[in-house]
């Protein structure tokens, strides 16, 4: 059991932090960028740094470290969506030819790949039914699909005679794009006899989709840790400097205690989420073990994320309600992450299915 990271990983963290902190040097910069299309600005630099090639060459540890850094400034670049999730899915399920074809253009930033898996009303289920594949074309609707408008390639899950298949689509679909609550974009994607190429050899790919999604959940959870960390730091800084009634806010014990409780929640969440990455990175881990770890991590995101995000706003007061200030955007992003990866009820129910199988839960057994 070892939670430490090595020198190379430390360097990765530092380089990512420097790069991303430079692009999003303030909450106002980030806000201005999200108001123009496509709503993110660090993509080329992330590519130059080699971070977009991670799904093809590195372990979940590296992707999680990068995601956590992006989370600190809630960088709107779709790193987890396009690289960890879509890139990871291509790497895991694509044919050798597809991997070769896509990996280079994903890694250099020229191709943005997005997984279109969610279906209206499906509540995080991975079994496809709203889009069907037959005779080489797709028909149906996917929603919400984050950053679909900017996507060069969609990886679409669809019902086939053999189960849930995965398909590469480059064109021939319609989009209705909406702003998301965290300043990003998501679309309803409608396929009408859209030509599609199977990812990999065909057949039922639901297990591959679910595993890639679980790994993405863990990376999202690290984004959330980074965001929660910023919420806490910002709140502590505000309590120290902001004066009310002629004294700094940290004169008020009740406020300090709530900051202390935020710290407790953050450290506990960090432990579980980091452990989940370690489980995902371990070669001997089964998909079931990774799914369980992803759900444990997601549950922490939900419970700690609401607690920390809401209290960061409350302890700031009115200023936190303004778009000019940072913590409200963190609350929005934490809320969005939770609804991307599944909320507490979803993950509790998923964990409940196997909870009776063990007595004591042994995280390092």
């Amino acid at each position, binding site marked *: 059991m070892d939670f430490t990271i090595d020198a190379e990983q430390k360097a990765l963290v530092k380089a990512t932090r420097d790069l991303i902190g430079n692009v999003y040097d303030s909450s106002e910069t980030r806000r201005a960028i999200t108001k123009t299309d496509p709503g993110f600005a660090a993509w080329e630099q992330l590519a130059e740094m080699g971070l977009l090639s991670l799904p093809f060459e590195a372990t979940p540890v590296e992707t999680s470290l990068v995601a956590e850094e992006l989370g600190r400034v809630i960088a709107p670049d779709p790193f987890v969506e396009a690289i960890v999730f879509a890139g990871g899915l291509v790497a895991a399920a694509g044919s050798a030819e597809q991997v070769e074809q896509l990996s280079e253009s994903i890694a250099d930033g020229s191709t943005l790949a997005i997984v279109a898996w969610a279906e209206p*009303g499906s509540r995080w289920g991975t079994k496809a039914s709203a889009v069907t594949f037959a005779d080489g074309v797709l028909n149906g609707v996917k929603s*919400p699909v984050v950053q679909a408008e900017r996507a060069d390639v969609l990886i679409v899950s669809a019902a086939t005679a053999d189960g849930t298949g995965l398909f590469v689509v480059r064109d021939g679909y319609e989009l209705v794009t909406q702003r998301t609550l965290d300043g990003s974009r998501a679309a309803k994607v409608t396929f009408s006899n859209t030509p599609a190429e199977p990812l990999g050899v065909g057949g039922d790919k639901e297990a591959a989709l679910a595993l890639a999604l679980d790994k993405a959940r863990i990376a999202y959870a690290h984004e959330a840790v980074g965001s929660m960390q910023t919420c806490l730091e910002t709140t502590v800084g505000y309590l120290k400097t902001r004066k009310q009634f002629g004294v700094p806010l940290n004169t008020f014990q009740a406020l300090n205690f709530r900051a202390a409780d935020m710290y407790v929640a953050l450290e506990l969440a960090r432990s579980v989420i980091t452990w989940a990455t370690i489980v995902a990175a371990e070669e001997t881990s089964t998909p079931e073990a990774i799914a369980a770890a992803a759900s444990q991590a997601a549950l922490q995101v939900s419970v700690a994320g609401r607690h920390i995000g809401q209290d960061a706003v*409350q302890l700031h007061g*009115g200023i936190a309600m303004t778009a000019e200030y940072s913590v409200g955007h963190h*609350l929005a992003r934490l*809320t969005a992450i939770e609804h*991307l990866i599944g909320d507490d009820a979803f993950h509790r*129910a998923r964990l409940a299915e196997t909870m009776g199988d063990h007595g004591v839960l042994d995280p390092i057994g």
Partner: protein
Amino acid sequence: MRLHLSAEDQAFREEMRTFFTTQVPQRIRDVVINQEELTKEVMVEAQQILNAAGLAVPAWPEEWGGRGWTQLQRHIWHEELQLAGVPEPLAFNASMVGPVIATFGSQEIKERFLPKTANIDIWWSQGFSEPDAGSDLASLRTTAIKDGDHYVVNGQKTWTTLGQYGDWIFMLVRTNPDAPKRQQGISFLLIDMTTPGLTVRPIELIDGGFEVNEVFFDNVRVPVENLVGEENKGWDYAKFLLGNERVGIARVGSTKRHLSEVKERAKELGVFDQFAERIVELENEVLALDLTALRVAANSNEGRPDPVSSVLKIKGSVLTQAVSELAVDVEGPDALTDHQSLAYLNYRKTSIYGGSNEIQRTIIAGTILGL
């Protein structure tokens, strides 16, 4: 003890319910029910319908449009109005500046302002909070220095809700900067927002909407006859006003309506059973709030707000937020682009404004528990 409303109050409730659901157009109420943005035009239209029927400012003195109702009747009026999705009469007019003018203003100032205030011919804004005075209102620094028959106002106000629509603004200003205590030397002044030197800057909120504003005052000249009551007594008027504000803030009717809408939505989405326990728990808490508001209203002496109103403020805001959080969860992944998510973000304000919940806890600990 008696369960039902008296026959009289029951008839009163029916009358209110019928009026609100038949005389206020569905088109207007749907804006509220669907949590869409209320435009100025719609709010004015709604309030003028109410005012024409004598239902806009029932708590005012009867000679200025009040109705002489009991506290319980006012509670029923308010709850039915919210349940029906009728936009509330603009609080700055109906609950804030109106009662202050009616209670502390001269006859001349009453005649000049109250009818237009009730009918929202004047849209009032509130100029209380300042950038360095959030919960600590008394530390305000905007000055009004007398210069002949005018005050010259300099400074900045913030969190001025819907100030972008404002015709006039009622202000707390410092008229005596040398007063020994911070609460002294503050006056209550009315300012025409078209006066030169007054600038309004809308502030974007985290849900992308524009609700609050900064208002800047650069040598704004205000006739002395726009002072309400006595000079340097403004803090007393402000406390009176804030007490009124807290009473209506529980939002019981709105929260009940929202919860019932979420129940319907959960049924539509096929997740009613999954959320049943959480809905039951919230319904139990909303019931407790509803009954406590009724208890306070039914037992309250006329006039002064019950300190228990702090309970209503705390729990009312927490439940507004909890129901909006439930609404987001019921939506599931679609919450990403749903207006329920924006409402969830927006409602974080309810535990901050109108005296934050920390301020309310301080009131309860001090005033009620003697701690």
